[in-house]
């Protein structure tokens, strides 16, 4: 019996080891590549998505994660580290990290930045406007990227499936370039999509944007009979979004946000977003193309994932008595579901 069980054991060990060996052989058939990842504030969902992607497709990779801990100086140290021991690929998270590591396009020949290593950036809201690259489809730098924002035109188109607005209100901080660019983009789409925009700038008080003006500006938008207010990505408006939401909801105007956090906190009714995990996975796919398929980074388009996710806050919907259509809800992430009252 003992001999039989030892035979069985050796049989399973032999075949089990064979199987795992085969799996390893598949992985080792490709060259091991070194990826250097730089994060502004820790490895989060996009970072997890990137690593999961490479793990899932079983490509041999050694990932070194560096966290700047919101310290710009550390980014300089990372550039030095890369210069000394260059990896096969650099991956950056966020606009600031990308600009500090790779530099704007006009300074692309400067030694201050990483030049010799192909790069994939992710979670950069406006790579062209921020000066990182000259275009999304064709550009000359040895880098590509995975974007996290749903393009404004797509957001507007999808938003109309929920609220067929004729007048869209926007309040923004003109001091923030991103916000001004987005407003101009939306204005350019308005005649094509048959709606009007009513935009208001936050006035400055002592050289700083004045949050107390938000309620007044919402009043002006209400007088102009806007059907919907768009909350863009500008930092000031997002920091003061509660003021915007309170004023808008008091006048029965829904707020539509470019980011998910405003919907989760109940300050916006809905948003169309890409989850960071998926953005990280898309960056992983682009990395795989560069590292193992031999594509040049500049030949790979800079793009967001294809399918946006509809996020809606049902508590806010109930408050405004504006409910999403059934067609949108079936593929949505619903947050703030009100507790069901007993009958």
């Amino acid at each position, binding site marked *: 019996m003992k001999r039989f069980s030892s035979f069985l054991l050796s049989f399973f060990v032999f075949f089990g080891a064979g199987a795992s060996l085969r799996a390893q052989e598949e992985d080792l058939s490709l060259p091991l590549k070194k990826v250097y990842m730089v994060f502004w504030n820790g490895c989060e*969902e996009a970072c997890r*998505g990137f690593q*999961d992607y490479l793990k*899932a*497709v*079983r490509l041999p990779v050694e990932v070194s994660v560096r966290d700047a801990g919101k310290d710009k100086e550390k980014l300089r140290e990372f550039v030095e580290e890369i210069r000394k021991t260059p990896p096969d690929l650099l991956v950056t998270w966020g606009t600031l990290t990308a600009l500090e590591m790779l530099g704007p396009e006009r300074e692309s020949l400067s030694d201050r930045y990483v030049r010799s290593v192909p790069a994939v950036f992710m979670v950069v809201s406006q790579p062209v406007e921020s000066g990182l690259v000259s275009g999304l489809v064709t550009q000359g730098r040895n880098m590509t990227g995975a974007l996290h924002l749903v393009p404004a035109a797509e957001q507007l188109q999808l938003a109309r499936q929920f609220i067929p607005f004729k007048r869209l209100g926007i309040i923004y901080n003109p001091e923030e370039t991103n916000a001004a660019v987005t407003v101009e983009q939306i204005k350019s789409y308005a005649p094509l999509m048959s709606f009007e925009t009513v935009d208001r700038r936050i006035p400055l008080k002592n050289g700083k944007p004045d949050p107390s003006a938000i309620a007044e500006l919402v009043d002006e938008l209400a007088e102009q009979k806007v059907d919907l207010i768009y909350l863009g990505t500008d930092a000031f408006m997002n920091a003061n979004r509660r003021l915007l939401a309170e004023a808008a909801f008091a006048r029965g105007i829904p707020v539509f946000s470019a980011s998910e956090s405003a919907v989760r906190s109940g300050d916006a009714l809905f948003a169309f977003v*890409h*989850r*960071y*995990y*998926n953005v990280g*996975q*898309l960056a992983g*796919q682009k990395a795989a193309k560069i590292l193992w398929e031999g594509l040049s980074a500049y030949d790979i388009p800079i793009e967001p*994932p*294809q*399918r*946006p*996710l509809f996020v809606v806050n*049902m*508590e806010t*919907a*109930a408050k405004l008595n504006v*409910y*999403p*259509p*059934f*067609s949108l*809800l*079936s*593929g*949505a*992430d*619903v947050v703030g*579901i*009100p507790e*069901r009252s007993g*009958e």
Partner: protein
Amino acid sequence: MRYLRLSHAVLAVFLWCAASFAFTGTCFVAYDEAAAELHRSRVREELSELRRTFQTELDKGESLARLKNAAAVLSGYKTADSDVSAVSVFDFPTGKTLFGTRSSRVGGSVPVEWYEKCRVTDDIFVHGEKDGKVAGTPIVNSFGEKSGCAVVEYKTDSYETGREAMMAAAFRSASSFSAVGVLFFGLLALLFFFKRQPRFSFLNRPLYRRSAFGILLLFVLLATPAAVTSVFSSFEAVLKGAIANKAGVVAEIVRARVSKAAESGLPFKSLQSVEPYLDGIRRQHPEISFILLTDKSGRVLYESGSAVQAFESDATTGKVSLRDGFYNAAEPVVAGGKTEGWVQIGVRERFVREKIF
């Protein structure tokens, strides 16, 4: 009439029999095609819904391998369709089953044919197996890459049994038709035979001759529609099972979606644009004549297609019942553990007959 010969009668009988077999054969083909389509579209609907469910989870930023309630979702599909023997999802990069209703499969590699067929298709693939069929569809992540594949294994016994029963019914009906023809032309031949006999010379009188011919013709005219109806009825009896199965699956899919909307806080009594969704389902499944969403008491809240013709009320009791020739599947819409209303799906059992004419 005067020149009728036996050979004419034989030829007429032959033509009649050929027409009978051609007619029942045409009907068989139409009903068989309908049965196959009911089967195919049912599986297609299940797979599309599975794909949509998993893709939504991927859009939410979940990894396919780490989905939490996937096994429960799959077992729901198995329960809803009695022909489904197993439902599973395999990982595309590794080809290993991630979750499934057959626990022995989980963790193991899928057959190469499944993997290859899933790799090359963007829609749905079907693969024949020893004891049934396998249909699958790729699950695509938010940037258009295949993450996995949903696979439904189903038995084809019920379809095959139905097909055999329809073939038997077709043969029976064609034989009965032929018998009617043989009888008609046989009696006609006898009539002409006897009228030459001196004992039956009265048959030479036009009145008798015409009356006899008229009676025979009337018999044929009455027997033919009865026989045609009987052909359709026998086919429809066989098709009933497939209709019930399909209506049940579609009702379950609608129920799940409406229940999810109600669970999400959408008031059941004011679902925005649910009717275009129901219309879309009816367009995809032309045999469905109506889809209703009713409240608990049966009051119609949303309607696609007309249900008026499907129901009749008893004049004395006022009780409403389903008319003959309609099938109705009903599933409860449940939110927060409470029944909010019902999904009612009505199918005209005679839809193939209507298509033929």
